[in-house]
């Protein structure tokens, strides 16, 4: 058969797959996607668009979707008149230190788990996983007691300690999974070439694990940035409060909430996550599926 005839046959076969049943099936699944997307996106869109509306327009009837008078004043007011900038700074400090400590300790530990054999290794790994399954609500009282003993209530250090401790286990799991895919002969070749163990880790293993590192980094960032319950209990004073706790204060009791401010503040608090995601995205997908490739 010629190439032309061959391709005609394949095209025919592909066309014949578009039966009525398949069209309906495809249409229905896209409809389902649209519904789910709307449910998820509607509140977000409402907040985003609402943050550019005048206070009166937010509750105007009939409601508007697109802001009638597009305005930045809500943002300007939130930055100038509220404590949100301070909350965001606090969050940034806590998140940044958490990220650095978690990745530093987690990757080194993961390298150890990946490359050395020692007693109870499997048990320790499973224990780490089990610890990860305990919701923070269960730990909140012990956290409070411990931090109160250590005199770290209402400090950033307290939050950083708790976040780092809680995020190290999954960092170890993700990174160990990644390191396991790199053959040990790489380490050995580098050692023969003259690397110290740390140098092997730093110059060879870590650069090859960037996808895993960005996945672990993003998940840690996400969790540390948006954690609510722990900081609410451990560090709720105005001076040290993080964004999630501060944001909570925007929503007053009954109808006292200044929604135009709350909306703008919410957008400003969420934006870093979106930005971080865009940065991590390139590596993120390959990081989360690394086990299946290679």
């Amino acid at each position: 058969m010629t190439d032309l005839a061959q391709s005609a046959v394949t095209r025919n076969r592909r066309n014949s797959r578009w039966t009525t049943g398949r069209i309906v099936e495809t249409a229905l699944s896209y409809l389902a996607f649209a519904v789910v997307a709307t449910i998820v996106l509607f509140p977000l869109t409402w907040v985003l668009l609402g943050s550019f509306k005048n206070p009166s327009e937010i509750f105007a009837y009939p409601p508007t979707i697109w802001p009638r008078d597009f305005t930045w004043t809500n943002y300007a007011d939130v930055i100038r008149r509220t404590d949100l900038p301070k909350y965001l700074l606090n969050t940034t400090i806590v998140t940044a230190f958490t990220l650095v400590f978690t990745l530093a300790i987690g990757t080194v530990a993961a390298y150890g788990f990946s490359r050395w054999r020692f007693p109870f290794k499997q048990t320790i790994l499973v224990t780490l996983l089990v610890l990860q399954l305990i919701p923070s609500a269960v730990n909140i009282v012990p956290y409070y007691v411990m931090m109160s003993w250590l005199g770290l209530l209402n400090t950033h250090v307290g939050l950083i300690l708790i976040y780092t401790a809680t995020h190290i286990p999954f960092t170890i799991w993700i990174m160990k999974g990644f390191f396991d895919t790199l053959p040990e002969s790489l380490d050995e070749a580098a050692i023969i070439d003259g690397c110290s163990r740390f140098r092997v880790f730093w110059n060879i293993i870590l650069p090859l694990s960037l996808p895993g590192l960005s996945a672990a980094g993003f998940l840690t960032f996400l969790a540390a940035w948006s954690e609510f319950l722990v900081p609410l209990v451990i560090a709720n004073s105005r001076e040290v409060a993080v964004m999630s706790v501060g944001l909570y204060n925007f929503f007053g009791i009954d109808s006292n909430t200044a929604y135009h401010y709350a909306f703008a503040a919410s957008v400003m608090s969420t934006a870093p996550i979106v930005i971080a995601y865009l940065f991590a995205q390139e590596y993120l997908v390959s990081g989360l599926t690394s086990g299946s490739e290679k």
Partner: protein
Amino acid sequence: MAEVRLSQIEKFYGAVKVIHGIDAVFEDGEFVALVGPSGCGKSTLLRMIAGLEEITVGDIYIGEKLVNDLAPKARDIAMVFQNYALYPHMTVADNMGFSLKLSGEPKQNRDRRVNEVAEILGLQDLLGRYPRQLSGGQRQRVAMGRAIVRDPQVFLFDEPLSNLDAKLRISMRGEIKQLHQRLKTTTIFVTHDQIEAMTMADRIVVMNDGRVEQVGTPIELFDRPKNLFVAEFIGSPSMNLLSGKIEKSASKNVFRTAGGESLPVMQSLSAGDEVVYGVRPEHLTLSRTGVEAEVIIVEPTGSETQVVFALGTEKIVGLFRERVTAQPGDLLKILPDPDQIHLFDRATGDRL
């Protein structure tokens, strides 16, 4: 360059002993192949020389230096791994120059040396590429380049050709041999492929189950295998081994198989000895004075013909330079060359 000396080397993994007291000397400038079946401890021994594996008992000397407690980088060795272990995120040039960079060599010297070696290996045009952009053979060459750049005392190769296809493997065999003739660096080459060992090495160390069975030149191993293991392991197709007894017949010794066939022997042995009779396929001839055997399979390769016979209850393989036109089921008379007979003690397996 330096000699490598192993003295009473033992290795335990936990309670399991995998190397059972090995003594060996790899002489300065020599190319030695370490062969043996899978799991016999070749890699373990090589890795102990490299310093990647701890030495449980015994001493290793490189040159005059006892290296037991030296780190790999202080032993002045270079190793080529089976999977090449090239650094995927570095270019060919960076891969090759990495060790020099670590030892603090100035960039200018480094580049000069890398270029020099690239030229030897024909890698000049690939220096800017990453390992993933290379073919298997090219990667193999880069791995060798990385070893050569350091100008070490000893090259250690762990089955470096086993990931290549058959044709490339044969041409790399020649290249590595030439390279050795040019550089004259002591080389220890691990392989489980006895043909690789035979064709490349000055001397071969045959290992089995953590022990050295025999050390010698390829010809020595082929002509005078010390025991049944070496006899069977060296040579392809492998030696025919038949069990039976020595008998006296008309003042001459003959070998009688379990099935009652008799074959000639030159060695003077006393009648009644239980032996294993070994003859290589290429040392069988078709002769009117031979013993009758039934043809089972005929495999012509063009230059030679391999024939499998049934001799009584045993199978025996012959390799003939002439064309054999027999059909399965035919009866042919075969005769072992009496000068090329190997006899082994049935109980100990040692050569008689």
